[in-house]
């Protein structure tokens, strides 16, 4: 089990339990976290589950692969800490992960 905290643009925090193996996007959708649209359902095809990974967690979550980097072109306000949450797999090592939700998912 890993606890993941989603931080809304207004600062509101929601912490949820996620099972290892699921994606951060799935953890968000399962817990009705606002701001994660995930229009394509996790196929890395829409860029509407964009999150900013907090600095302390960037190494643990790793870098986007080519397909994800390409898809990020279709997201708004991309920063070095931008990830698509459907491409971050939950592991025990991510217990405590904090991600921020962008102002807009487009």
């Amino acid at each position, binding site marked *: 089990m890993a606890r993941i905290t989603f931080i809304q643009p207004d600062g509101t925090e929601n912490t949820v339990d996620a099972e290892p193996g699921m994606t951060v996007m799935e953890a968000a959708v399962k817990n009705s976290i606002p701001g994660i649209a995930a*229009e*394509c359902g996790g*196929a890395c*095809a*829409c*860029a*509407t589950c964009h999150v900013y990974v907090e600095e302390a967690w960037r190494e643990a979550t790793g870098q986007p692969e080519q397909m994800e*980097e*390409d898809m*990020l*072109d*279709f*997201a*708004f*306000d*991309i920063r070095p800490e931008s990830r698509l949450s459907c491409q971050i797999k939950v592991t025990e090592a991510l217990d405590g992960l904090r991600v921020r939700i962008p*102002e*807009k998912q*487009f």
Partner: protein
Amino acid sequence: MSEDVIKTDAVIVGAGPVGLFAVFELGLVDVKAHVIDILDRPGGQCAELYPEKPIYDVPGLTVVTGQELTDRLMEQIKPFGAEFHFSQRVESLERLDGGFRLTTDMGTVFECKVVIIAAGGGSFTPKRPPLPGIEAYEGKSVFYSVRKMDAFKDKDVLIVGGGDSALDWTLNLQPVANSLTLLHRRSEFRAAPASVQKMLELVDSGDVSFKLGQVTELHGDDGKLTGVTVKGTDGETFEQKTEVMLPFFGLTMKLGPVADWGLNLEENLIPVDTEKFESSEKGIFAIGDINTYPGKLKLILSGFHEAALMAQQAHNYVHPDKKLIFQYTTSSSSLQKKLGVK
């Protein structure tokens, strides 16, 4: 005008997998259909969002990609000769005596006895960058598509994005525009390599200016853009002068005009019964992801089931004088004749 009206039994709004299978089920019960879709090809989300991605829950197919499923459905419905109208969006739906009239944004008019809304998550529309005040510029100096290249003649044009649309329009508009700047957040492009190559050649020859960064602000007055603020990759901002901006950030699904057709809606979905999958209005059906009912699952296979049951009732409206006898394709010679296998 009246000779331009397409008269048919059924109009299916949406050419996704469920809309396509509806052609099959309607065909078996002698209901002729025309299919309209905003995309330029069949498949809906399967074609637009995940053509290469595997689907594991279509009965009988261990794994199938979105594109493969679309191709197979197109093959399966071939005997019914449905006519397709792509790159068009149904704008309005009017009630006629004993039927409906639908008009698309390209002015195509249909008159039919039943309407099948198989519009999935809505119609695919270009993503609008959430930049403050962008609405005021849309259609005047910010455009999400190019209808007439002439509109950009001798203009300073800024194209934003790094996909095929951004690259294609960079190449197409460069000879027409006064100046053309391509802005993208990185120096890699997910576009056809040949287009990227051509664009880079134009950059080398000084005909296209390529800049790295993301637009953060729009400047202008009264819908007329004068420039934009760009945040560069180094975090520094700079001003880019332009008269026109074309942002290409892919497509998103929006319910669109369906919302104005006078149907009951629940959270942008069309409530239907689970016997005929008919909306609050007789003769208008909703199948696939766009409908809702107790226990609804947004699965392709559920949509197929909905199409089969819908067709039974659609038959009753289209052929009120004919009694429908339930038959199997395996054993019915009349169904096999329709399928062209006998």
